[in-house]
């Protein structure tokens, strides 16, 4: 089964769960006076869930025949691409999200930009450090001073 039909199956699951919530659990907490209303909070979700389930079934059954197109990236040969780099960068983004608050903006961002370049295979250390530090400083200045949005610059133990 091709990937798009597997995704269709997952989407079917999402719509079923959503539909279950809309049809069976949501109305329990509805206030009595609301029940006189022609429209309930669950009305629109109920319609959506039915349409979604029908659509997912059409995709899974493969009723709509399109020719198998291979886009920019052929997922069947994912190993041929720079998968490690992509996963590394995603992990780096998660790390950045977790470190942004405790580590302060300046350190985390400089680190993010340097490690990002290293993952992509850059080895000119001096250039990398200078460019990253400069860019971090400029962005921090713009966001903090020009736009007026607070970004904690330094980690807590340095008084940031």
């Amino acid at each position: 089964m091709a990937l798009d039909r597997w995704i269709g199956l997952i989407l079917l699951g999402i719509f079923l769960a959503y539909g279950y919530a809309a049809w069976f659990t949501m109305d329990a907490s509805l206030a009595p006076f609301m029940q006189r209303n022609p429209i309930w909070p669950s009305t629109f979700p109920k319609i959506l869930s039915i349409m979604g389930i029908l659509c997912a079934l059409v995709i899974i059954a493969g009723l709509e025949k399109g020719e198998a197109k291979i886009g920019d990236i052929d997922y069947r040969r994912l190993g041929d691409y720079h998968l490690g780099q992509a996963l590394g960068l995603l992990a780096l983004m998660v790390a950045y999200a977790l470190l942004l608050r405790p580590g302060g903006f300046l350190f985390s961002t400089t680190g993010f930009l340097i490690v990002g370049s290293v993952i992509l295979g850059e080895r000119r250390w001096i250039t990398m450090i200078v460019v990253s530090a400069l860019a971090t400083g400029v962005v921090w200045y713009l966001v903090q001073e020009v736009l007026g949005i607070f970004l904690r610059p330094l980690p807590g133990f340095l008084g940031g």
Partner: protein
Amino acid sequence: MLEGILIGLQTALSVQNLLMVIGGCLIGTFIGMLPGLGPMSIIAIMIPVAISMGDAAAALILLAGVYYGAIFGGSTSSILLNAPGVAGTVATSFDGYPMARQGKAGKALTIAAIASFCGGTIGAVLLMVFAPMLSSVALLFHSAEYFALMVVGLSAIAAFAGTGQVAKAIIMTLLGLIMATVGEGALFNMPRFTMGLMDLQSGFGFITLAMAMFALPEAIFLVLNPARSAQGDSGDIKDLRISRAEAKSIAPVIGRQSLQGFFIGVLPGAGATIASFLGYAVERNIAPKAEQDEFGKGSVKGLAAPETANNAACTGSFVPLLTLGIPGSGTTAILLGALIALNVTPGPRLMIDDPQIFWAVIISMYIGNLVLLILNLPLIPYIAKILSVPRNFLIPFILFFTLMGAYIGQNNATELLLLVGFGICATVLRFADYPLAPLLIGFILGGMLENNFSRSMQLYDGVSFVWERPMTLGLLIVAALLVILPSYRARRARLRAKGVADGD
């Protein structure tokens, strides 16, 4: 109308807004030139900046400048590198790149600049004529018609999705709609589908979603496949002049394609991409036999047609946004989200309530086109140098700006984790050829769709508004036809799969 134009001139010609136009066009041209970054990603990245300015007119002027700057910049990389930065300029590379290889890069860039300028300017004139007309008709609409109109818009987007894609586009729209129901709505004072999580109480962040759907998968694709960011030496670009004969031959093309492109842009779901491909195809078919053979080998007409059409379509896509408040494409959907964040509701009342915004945007389009022309002609050889920024530096920066965009809006690190999570999902969906723009459009229209639906239900005490209001019924029938026809036609003709891409 004259009064409106004067108000617009007054607003648009303020120093701040002039700087916004120039800045927006510059940023758009720079980033749009980078292969892989389309107008949607750029605008998504620019939104936090625009929102924090607090002035709706200035923000929309900036974002609109970025929009046509990006389309413009995309044509430069199409011509010089055969690497379109934007789906709307793919057709430009058909004839632009052969011209560049024949050593006529300067001439190709000049033609592209002039064609874009004319397309954009004529589009702005048409916008000025048609938007107020449509707007006054739209004032007669009732919430039932609005509901039906949004259904038409959403199904048109699905209908233009291409062969074998209709069900996928619809399910993506529905996914966007169900994501919009998460959180506490305005109509019912109860949280829905939050699964008890406080973080979901106010729903998903629109900027986070926009970044995750467009900017992040694009960056991941660039990492996975370095060939996408093909880099080349732009070399020396000289000889920018075009001859009188060439000017004569492209003039009718520009005239026709400005009109055609504009009206295609007005249709929901069909944006600059479809306009440019269709423009190219039409011009090739009506050209004399001798010139037809030139197409694809460096024909000036083949270059002028898509360039005119895509810029005119960009302008055209502002018509439904400004008059009905319904975005026709992913890009205008993002613009709509930004406007709502700035407490401006686009729609027929916009012209009456905030005439300075409405007219300033239109006037700034003229200024923007002029800026682009001035910018493009003498500066192109220098701007093209950005194409030589190494990707090892470029990609971390793109990722960083994506993260920053999601963070600045909410000041919440959880948002960043959501961004990465949705980004991975979006990448997998792109692998399987699911279109992502419908999801975002569904998400943005979801709240309005439900509110209008609920209001009509309450007014008519049930669903009887569907058959009691002829206009609503008519629009819903159109919506149904839009969904059914393409799948019916697809069964008969599976030949023309190529030529329709999402991404503008």
